């Protein structure tokens, strides 16, 4: 029997911008077992809910993660609105939809870039991030910030966006589309990408479902599961089909995210076509009482915000189950039998967001 050694990976690692520590039990170059040790980013923000007004907590909920920030804020608002049973104005719901799809676009482009970087495809990384700046400009000009948008509030959104501006966003995305096509073509067709990602970190359909994988990881294993189908925000009035791949490997996960870029553009166009006129926020009075689970689809997968309130202005419990947290067990399963050099790519393929996972 070969000797087993444990290689620590991270927390400060050139490939990962975030601290994730893995203990890799190795037999020569093969990973026998991987164990994450997390907690480098654990802040304990769920506890803060006891000190802050429930309306102000949205700013903290947004800062759970800087990449999917908008959707975190939105899901928190949905949870509170669910508890209080607030009828949110439809225009606000549509604006939320547009912004969450823009967030998805920027997050997926970011991820495609990071993946390219982790395989050593530097120019592809640069190209992805160059295109991402267009999306960030759209976000900044409509919400006021590039990354942490701060656009959602309990009972609606904080700014209205004029119909002309929405139209120009769609026109801008149409212009962007051929460039995205070129980019995605490289990911889909390029031999070096195929060879580097094909067959790596395979999760079967059953494994992915039973281990609790969510989002692109689950869809890449052939399960058509997209939380947008439950119809939160304005998604119940928009048409889309979840992108599903069957390979279950890193290449399939890349495909899912790459194709979702176009689904998002399409959803934004539909939302802008259908957006109703009207107010974008409602007056919220009183304090919540009750509990609610709000679920929504982040770029990384399903996020669950649970809110329990007892009629005071501070909530009793706020819990967030982030996609990366539940994607950790599937990641560990996918890493068994890998070579050490492939570990960074496979870790990246679940789109880990440690800031989210550890809160």
């Amino acid at each position, binding site marked *: 029997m070969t000797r087993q050694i444990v290689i620590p990976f991270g927390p400060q690692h050139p490939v990962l911008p975030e601290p994730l520590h893995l203990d890799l039990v190795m037999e020569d170059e093969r990973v026998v077992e991987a164990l994450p040790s997390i907690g480098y980013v654990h802040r304990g923000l769920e506890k803060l809910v006891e000190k802050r007004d429930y309306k102000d907590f949205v700013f903290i909920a947004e800062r759970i993660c800087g990449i999917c920030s908008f959707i975190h804020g939105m899901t928190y608002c949905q949870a509170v609105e669910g508890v209080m049973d607030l009828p949110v104005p439809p225009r606000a719901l549509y604006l939320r939809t547009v912004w969450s799809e823009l967030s998805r676009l920027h997050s997926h482009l970011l991820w495609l870039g990071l993946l390219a970087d982790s395989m050593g495809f530097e120019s592809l990384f640069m190209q992805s991030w160059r295109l991402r700046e267009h999306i960030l400009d759209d976000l900044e000009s409509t919400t006021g910030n590039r990354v942490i948008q701060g656009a959602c509030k309990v009972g609606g959104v904080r700014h209205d966006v004029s119909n002309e501006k929405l139209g120009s966003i769609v026109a801008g995305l149409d212009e962007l589309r051929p460039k995205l096509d070129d980019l995605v073509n490289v990911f889909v067709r390029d031999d070096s990408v195929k060879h580097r990602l094909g067959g790596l970190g395979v999760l079967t359909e059953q494994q992915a479902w039973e281990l609790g994988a969510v989002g692109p990881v689950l869809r890449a294993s052939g399960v058509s599961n997209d939380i947008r189908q439950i*119809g*939160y925000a304005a998604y119940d009035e928009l048409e889309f089909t979840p992108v599903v791949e069957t390979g279950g490997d890193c290449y399939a996960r890349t495909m899912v995210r790459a194709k979702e870029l176009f689904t998002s553009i399409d959803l934004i166009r539909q939302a802008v076509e259908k957006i109703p006129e009207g107010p974008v926020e409602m007056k919220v009075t009183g304090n919540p009482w009750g509990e609610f*689970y709000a679920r929504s689809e982040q770029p990384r997968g399903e996020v*669950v915000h649970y809110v329990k309130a007892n009629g005071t202005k501070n909530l*009793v419990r706020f819990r967030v189950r982030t996609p990366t947290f539940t994607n950790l067990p599937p990641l560990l399963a996918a890493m068994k039998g890998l070579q050490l050099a492939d570990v960074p790519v496979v870790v990246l393929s679940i789109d880990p967001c440690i800031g989210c996972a550890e809160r």
Partner: protein
Amino acid sequence: MRREAQPIEAIEVPDLLARVGERKAAGDRLIAISCAVVEGVNEITYSFEDRDHAFTNLRITVPPGATIPSTTPVYWGAFVYENEIHDLYGLTVTGINVDYGGHFYMTKVPFPFAAPTPAAAPAKEEKE
């Protein structure tokens, strides 16, 4: 906008594994295990989803510092949630497949979310 139904069924601790096993047999996915302290007791909620997005919950209620069985024999991936419950709430979970032994999160305050027990003097900042 649609708001989904969220039935929560209260069950007893000894039934937990059997009921969770039923869910697995029905082909459900474990969404999350969340814990909350409500009026001095821990509510632990197991959320599931079937293939058509139907969202259901099972809930057990245990006193602070209690011992609960692990669901990892049923859902392998549940260890992340159960280690978290141990580290943040001070509940003991028996039979976890990957047991971090309290080193999942390293927190400045031990068991920051735990319900205050009458014996423990209130901490300086972290009182409930």
